[in-house]
């Protein structure tokens, strides 16, 4: 394989709060290769967003603290970069699309001014060149009447249109890495379909490596090449999208899949994960997932020993002591729910 574009290594990000230290990111490592989409899934508080905020240098310190690790962008460690260098990296080499375009666009500037600002700052274009390029970009993301829309303010755009403008802004400087954090969560499903198509074509246009963060497993299945599953500030499983959906090797991943109602089949019943996500101030000892795990069954090892991420196949890794029991577990869940997770695809 080629060299990774972005390589996150053993990242630890903590926050000091009056209640104690919040361990939001607990030794997270994953890579992003050129042109691929890495889907990051996990529930609230899994650390998926804090990881990318750290990558972008957007953690305010204090209360935040980056206690360890490296973030390598083409070999350069971003954690050692100066504030000035990071300003250049953001928006130029790494661009971000946020969930809520209403709060991430400036309400008192026109869309055109905001988009051309990125070009003026990073590319040194002239005003008229920038205007021309912005109109091109707006057309690319499917904003109708781009010429007139250039001079409108964010409140004159609908939610879907604002998200298109955000995507246009993100790809304006041909970033190497595109980070999309819940890019369509605030949108209706028919508008989501439009925006996803725009996101795909923007990706093709720039050939950027993309990190797609979402809680929507359907979105991951459709958009991602590889999937990172996070829980309690750690990566618990990582593999290709087929491996994750059809041969999961971590009980948490299986729990997410069996919690999901299906559009195409009326399932017998859902098999939820018991309990709720852990507090990051007071993570359970051993495997953080053990109090909710269907495989742990009170076993000592799960309570004592933090499982390492180990290889369970080509590039497929899982952090579970009993990953070899997963084939049996998948069959059990299939019996319970009436769903099929691939033809017992576990090797």
């Amino acid at each position, binding site marked *: 394989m080629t060299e990774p574009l972005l390589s996150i290594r053993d990242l630890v990000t903590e926050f000091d709060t009056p209640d104690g230290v919040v361990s939001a990111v607990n030794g997270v490592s994953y890579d992003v290769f050129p042109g691929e989409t890495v889907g990051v899934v996990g529930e609230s508080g899994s650390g998926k967003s804090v990881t990318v905020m750290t990558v972008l240098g957007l953690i305010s310190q204090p209360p935040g603290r980056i206690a360890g690790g490296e973030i390598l962008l083409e070999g350069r460690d971003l954690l050692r970069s100066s504030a000035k260098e990071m300003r250049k990296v953001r928006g130029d080499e790494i661009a971000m699309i946020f969930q809520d375009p209403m709060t991430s666009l400036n309400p008192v500037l026109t869309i055109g001014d905001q988009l051309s600002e990125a070009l003026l700052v990073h590319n040194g274009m002239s005003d008229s060149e920038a205007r021309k390029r912005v109109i091109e970009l707006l057309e690319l993301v499917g904003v109708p009447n781009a010429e007139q829309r250039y001079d409108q303010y964010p409140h004159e755009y609908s939610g879907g249109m604002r998200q298109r403008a955000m995507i246009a802004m993100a790809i304006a400087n041909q970033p190497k890495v595109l980070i999309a954090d819940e890019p369509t969560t605030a949108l209706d499903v*028919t508008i989501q379909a439009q925006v996803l198509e725009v996101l795909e074509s923007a990706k093709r246009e720039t050939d950027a490596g993309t990190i797609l963060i979402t809680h929507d497993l359907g979105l991951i299945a459709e958009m991602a090449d590889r999937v990172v599953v996070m829980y309690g500030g750690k990566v618990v499983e990582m593999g290709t999208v087929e491996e994750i959906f059809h041969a999961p090797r971590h009980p948490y991943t299986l729990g997410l899949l069996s919690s999901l109602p299906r559009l195409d089949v009326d399932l017998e019943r859902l098999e939820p994960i018991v309990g*709720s996500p852990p507090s990051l101030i007071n993570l359970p000892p051993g495997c953080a997932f053990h109090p909710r795990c269907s495989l742990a069954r009170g076993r000592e090892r799960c309570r004592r020993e933090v499982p390492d991420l180990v290889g369970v196949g080509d590039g497929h890794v899982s952090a579970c002591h009993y990953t070899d029991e997963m084939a049996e577990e998948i069959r059990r869940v299939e019996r319970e729910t009436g769903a099929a997770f691939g033809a017992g695809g576990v090797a």
Partner: protein
Amino acid sequence: MASSAMSEPLLSVRGLTKHFPLTRGVVFRRQIGSVQAVDGVSFDLHEGETLGLVGESGCGKSTTARLLMRLIEPTAGEAIYGGEDIFTMSRAQLRRLRRDIQIIFQDPYASLDPRMTVGSIIGEGWEVHPDLVPKGQRRAEVSRLLEQVGLEAGHADRFPHQFSGGQRQRIGIARALAVRPEVLILDEPVSALDVSVQAQVINLIEQLQDEYGFAALFIAHDLSVVRHISDRIAVMYLGKIVESGVADEIYERPAHPYTQALLSAVPSPDPTITRRERIRLEGDVPSPANPPSGCRFRTRCWKADERCAEEEPALVDRFGHGHPSACHYADVSDVIGSSGQE
């Protein structure tokens, strides 16, 4: 399951309409138009069944819920419950109605009074309906309800902020069940919850429905959740029902172009399913203050022609499936490729 269409419906809604006035001016307020949030909605809810009401933001599904609770007054229409029209009921009848019809809201953080203990939140209904549970037994009844929704009896003395989102939604359910409702209206009850917790709450609602036998009006935008929980489904667009029928009919044989587009837009959590052809709708939902003439969906519809602009399509059973659709050019199409599965 649906207790068949033959029995008398528990709740019968006919021509329900709500137009919110749009005004201009401060001193001389004048009406310059109206937002047609709900426009001629009719449906029946039978004993013990779950009717799913789906649609995107602004389609009027939550306004419908608020109207049925009489939290807002309708512009027109009736809703017959127990032989009486909800909208003409006396105060005494309303008090009884609000016991019989309970609502659970989306936001478990905003719908519980932060200064009340969980026990007093659950028991509040008994202050208004003291005959439901004798005073001496209330404490025990609160414990029983808490355990039934998967919490602990000891939680009665805690305050809402000590609970997670999923637990708060359970408290809301216990509060609703405390007055033994006939109808439960659930307005996006799980959309603020994480996937794993969402499944717990869905299973809980199903289990309690088996036990208590209430009818449910389940309002949601998540089509997968709605399929899982509903017996029958009504699809709304811009204040109108465009298609309705039993769940399998709607999902496997949708006939209205909007239903087809909606279903095909949902990403499938199965990466090996060959990417089905997605119907992509152009543009945004038009403003309900100025809806299109004729069929309200026509501005985004690939089938639309002059007839659609002039003549509003009626919601009628066009194929004899007992599954009405409001489209001049309705045509059944399995857009999610569900036949052949299961």
